[in-house]
C-alpha cells in the first residue's frame, strides 16, 4: 500500500513538473511589459484620452513637433523639419520631412496633416478641445490649415504665444494619421474611427499587431521609421491589474518591466538580484479643494489655515513613500515656469491662530470626496486627522473615479481630494485650470479646478492668465506664470500638496526605457537589452 501511494505521489509530482513552463528570460528582441491597461477606452488618436492610450499613441504616431524620446523636455522637430511664425503672430509655416512613411508604406503628405486635424475637429471627441483652442471649427478648418507641396500652413485665431501654439500641435490629438488608409476604412461616415480602434495608421516607431481590451497590446517595429527601426522587434504589453502578481512575473523573468507596483511592492524589490527600480517625476499635481457653494468654506481664512493643516512631509515620507514629493504650485517641477517654493508646512497652531484671528466659527463639518483607491484614501485619512486639529472635521466619502468625477462636474461636492495633469506641456494648460474662470455661472461649464469649485479668481488674476497666454517674450511669459502660481498659493480655495512620481521596476538588462512627465512621453523605441 505504501509503495502504491508513493508511486502515485511521485507520478503526480512528475506530471506537474512536466507541465512546468520554462522560466527562461524573454527574447533579446522582445520587450514584455506587465501593466494595467484597462483604462483604455479608444486607441484612435482623435479620441484617445487615457493614460495608457497616450503611451500607445506616443509609440505609434508622430506629430509635426514633439518632445522626443531623446530629451522629453525639449520641443524638437519631428514630422516637420523647420517652422516659422509670421510677424503678426497668426500663422506658422511648417516644412514637412522628406521620406517619411506610414505603417502602410504610404508616404507622408501635406494632405495627411490637413486631413488628420480636420478629422479630429469633425469627430469632436474628448480631446478635440485641445486643437479647437486655436479657433478651429469644422466649418473653417480647411481655411485654417492648408498645404502645398511639402509645406503646411497653420493659422489660428486669438492672441497666443508661439510656444503655446507649438505645444498644442505637439499634443496627442495633433498626431498625423495615414488619411488614405483611414478613409478607405470609413464606415457610415465615421472617418475610419471604428477601424482605428483596432488598427494603427501612423508613422511612429511601432505599429499595432494585436489589441484586446484589458488583455493584451502587441506592437511591432516599424522598419521604415524615419529615425531608424527600434531595437525591439516587438513590444508586448500584458494586462495585469494586480501589482503583487506583476512583481512575481518580473522576478520570475517572464516580463521585463512592471509598471503598477505600490510602495511596499517596490520596497520588496530593492534587494532583488537582477531587478532595478527607476523613478520618473510626473506632471500630475495632487490637491485638496473647497467648493465655494458651501458657505462654511468661503472664508479665505479657512483656505489659508488649510495650507498649514496638511502634513506634507509626514505623508511624503510614509504612505506616499516614493510615489509623490512635496510640491505646492500648479505647474510641476522640472518644466520651465515651475515654482518650486514650498512655503507651507504642517503647523496646526498657526492654522488655529489664522482661524481665530478671522473669527471663523468652529467646528466646520464638511464632506471630503476621494477616489476609493490607494493612496487616495490613505491621504484622505491623514488630512482628516490633521484638519481635525484645527476644528475642521472632514467626513470622508469614498467612491469610484466615475462617481467622484460626476459629483465634481456637477459642483455638488464640498471638499475634494483629486489630482490634475496637464493636457499639453504648456503652462497655460494648468494656469487655465487653476487661475482662470471666464464665467462662474452654473450653465457655463468648464473643466477647470476654478469653475468646478465655483471659485471666481480676482479680475487681475484672470487678466494675467490671458495675458500670459499671448505674451511673445518667452522669459517674460514664464515670469508671469511664476507670479500666477504665487498668487494662487496665497489666495485660492485649494491647497496643492504633491507632485506625482512614477516608480517602474525593470530587469537589469533593460536600457533606454524613457518615461517622461506624462503618458505622452513614454517611449520604447530606444530600449535595448544587454
Amino acid at each position, binding site marked *: 500500500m505504501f509503495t502504491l501511494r508513493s508511486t502515485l505521489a511521485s507520478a503526480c509530482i512528475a506530471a506537474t513538473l512536466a*507541465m512546468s513552463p520554462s522560466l527562461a528570460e524573454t527574447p533579446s528582441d522582445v520587450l514584455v511589459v*506587465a501593466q494595467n491597461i484597462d483604462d483604455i477606452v479608444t486607441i484612435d488618436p482623435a*479620441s484617445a484620452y487615457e493614460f495608457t492610450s497616450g503611451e500607445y499613441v506616443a509609440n505609434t504616431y508622430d506629430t509635426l513637433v514633439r518632445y522626443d524620446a531623446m530629451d522629453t523636455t525639449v520641443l524638437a522637430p519631428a514630422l516637420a523639419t523647420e517652422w516659422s511664425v509670421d510677424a503678426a503672430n497668426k500663422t506658422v509655416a511648417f516644412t514637412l520631412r522628406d521620406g517619411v512613411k506610414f505603417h502602410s508604406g504610404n508616404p507622408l503628405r501635406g494632405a495627411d496633416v490637413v486631413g488628420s486635424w480636420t478629422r479630429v475637429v469633425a469627430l469632436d471627441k474628448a480631446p478635440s478641445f485641445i486643437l479647437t483652442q486655436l479657433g478651429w471649427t469644422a466649418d473653417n478648418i480647411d481655411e485654417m490649415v492648408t498645404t502645398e507641396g511639402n509645406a503646411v500652413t497653420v493659422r489660428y485665431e486669438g492672441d497666443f504665444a508661439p510656444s503655446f501654439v507649438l505645444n498644442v500641435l505637439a499634443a496627442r490629438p495633433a498626431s498625423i494619421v495615414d488619411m488614405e488608409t483611414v478613409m478607405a476604412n470609413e464606415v457610415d461616415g465615421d472617418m475610419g474611427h471604428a477601424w482605428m480602434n483596432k488598427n494603427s495608421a501612423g508613422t511612429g516607431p511601432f505599429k499595432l499587431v*494585436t489589441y484586446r481590451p*484589458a488583455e493584451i497590446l502587441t506592437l511591432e517595429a516599424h522598419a521604415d521609421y524615419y529615425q531608424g527601426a527600434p531595437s525591439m522587434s516587438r513590444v508586448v504589453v*500584458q*494586462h495585469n491589474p494586480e501589482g503583487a502578481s506583476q512583481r512575481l512575473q518580473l522576478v520570475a523573468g*517572464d516580463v521585463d518591466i512592471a509598471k503598477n507596483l505600490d510602495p511596499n511592492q517596490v520596497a520588496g524589490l530593492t534587494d532583488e538580484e537582477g531587478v532595478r527600480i527607476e523613478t520618473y517625476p510626473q506632471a500630475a499635481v495632487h490637491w485638496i479643494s473647497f467648493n465655494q457653494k458651501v458657505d462654511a468654506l468661503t472664508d479665505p481664512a479657512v483656505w489659508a489655515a488649510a495650507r498649514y493643516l496638511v502634513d506634507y512631509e509626514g505623508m511624503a515620507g510614509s504612505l506616499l513613500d516614493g510615489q509623490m514629493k512635496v510640491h505646492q504650485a500648479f505647474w510641476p517641477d522640472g518644466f520651465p515656469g515651475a515654482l518650486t517654493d514650498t512655503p507651507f508646512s504642517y503647523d496646526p497652531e498657526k492654522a488655529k491662530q489664522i482661524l481665530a484671528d478671522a473669527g471663523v466659527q468652529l467646528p466646520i463639518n464638511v464632506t471630503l470626496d476621494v477616489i476609493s483607491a490607494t493612496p487616495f484614501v490613505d491621504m484622505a485619512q491623514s488630512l482628516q486627522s490633521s484638519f481635525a486639529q484645527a476644528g475642521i472635521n472632514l467626513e470622508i466619502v469614498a467612491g469610484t473615479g*466615475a462617481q467622484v468625477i*460626476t459629483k465634481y462636474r456637477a459642483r455638488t461636492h464640498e471638499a475634494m481630494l483629486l489630482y490634475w495633469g496637464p493636457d499639453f506641456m504648456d503652462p497655460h494648460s494648468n494656469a487655465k485650470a487653476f487661475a482662470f474662470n471666464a464665467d462662474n455661472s452654473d450653465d457655463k461649464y468648464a473643466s477647470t479646478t476654478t469653475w468646478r469649485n465655483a471659485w471666481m479668481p480676482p479680475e487681475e488674476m484672470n487678466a494675467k492668465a490671458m495675458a500670459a497666454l499671448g505674451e511673445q517674450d518667452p522669459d517674460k511669459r514664464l515670469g508671469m506664470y511664476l507670479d500666477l502660481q504665487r498668487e494662487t498659493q496665497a489666495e485660492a480655495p485649494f491647497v496643492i500638496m504633491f507632485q506625482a512620481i512614477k516608480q517602474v521596476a525593470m530587469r537589469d538588462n533593460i536600457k533606454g526605457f524613457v518615461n517622461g512627465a506624462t503618458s505622452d512621453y513614454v517611449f520604447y523605441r530606444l530600449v535595448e537589452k544587454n
Partner: protein
Amino acid sequence: MPLPNWLRTTLLTLGSIAVTLLGLLFVTFVIGRVMPIDPVLAIVGERASQSTYDAVFQELGLDKPLIVQFGYYIWDVIRLDFGTSLLNARPVSEDLARVFPATLELATLGIFIGIVLGVPLGVVAAVRKGSWIDQVARVVALVGYSMPIFWLGLMGLLIFYGILGWVGGPGRVGIFYVDVVPSVTGMILIDAALDGNWDVFKNAFSHIILPASLLGYYSLAYISRMTRSFMLEQLSAEYITTARVKGMSEWDVVWKHAFKNIRVQLITVIALSYANLLEGSVLTEIIFSWPGIGSYITTALLSADMNAVLGGTVVVGLIFIMLNIFSDLLYKVFDPRAR
C-alpha cells in the same frame, strides 16, 4: 383543440425564460440609471467641452424618458444588438464572445476539480463520521469557506509560480503562445487540442491549473459538506440498516443505495456551484489576469457602462436558466418520480 403536452411545456418554458430575462434586464437597467455615475463622462472624459458632452448625451438617448430608453434597448436586444461598450468603444457582443469562453473554460475545469475531489471526500467523511478523515474534511471545508480568495490566490501564485515554478503565471497563456492557434471556441485548451498544437495546450494548462484549482477548492468546500450532510441522512435511514442486515457489502450499501438517493440533491448543489463560477470570480480573474466575464461586468458597472452590464446580465441570466433546465432534465433521468 388542446396543444400537445410537449408543445405546451416548450412554450411555457420559453415564456418563463422571456419573462425572467425581461425582469432581470429591467431591474438592472433601472439600477444602472439611478446610480450616481454619469455614463457620458465615462465616454468623453472629465475635461470634454459642454458641446461634446451634450452630443454624447443625446447620442446615448439619455434625454428620453427611462421607459423609452428601456424600450429601445429591448428592441435592440431582440435583434441581438447589445450596443457598444462605453469603456472600449467596441460592440458588447464582441466583448462577450471574448470574455465568456475564458470564464467558461476556467469554471468548467474548476467545477470538475470540485466534483472529483469534493463528492468522494463528502461521502467518505459521512461514512467515517467522527474519524480523522471526517476531521480533515471539516478543516479543508472550513479553510475553503473562511480564507479570502484574494490572499489564497496570491499565496498560490507565490509558491507554485514564484518559488517552485510549477505553473504558468498570470494570463491565459504565455506571451509567446498568444494567437498561435486559431480561435474556434475561444477556449484555448480546446482550440489547441483541435489544432493539435500540444505545446500551446501544455502552456495553457500550466496557466489555468492554478486558478482552476483555487475555484475548485472553493467549490469542493461547499460540495463536500453538502454531500456529507445528504449522505448522513441516507445512512441513518431504515433501508440502509436493512441492506446491511441482508449482508450487502459496505461498498454496495454506500454507493449503490445511499449515494444513489442523494444524486438529485447533489445535482442542485453542483449546478448552483457551477453557476456561481460561471458568473465569474472577480478576484480570481484580477489576480490571475484572466479576461473573464466577472471582471468585465464589474469594471463596466463601476464606470456606468450599462450596455456592457446589461449584455453581461443577459449572459449570466441565460446561464442560470439553462442550468436550471439541465438540472430538471437530470432529475428526470435519476429520479423516476420526476418523469
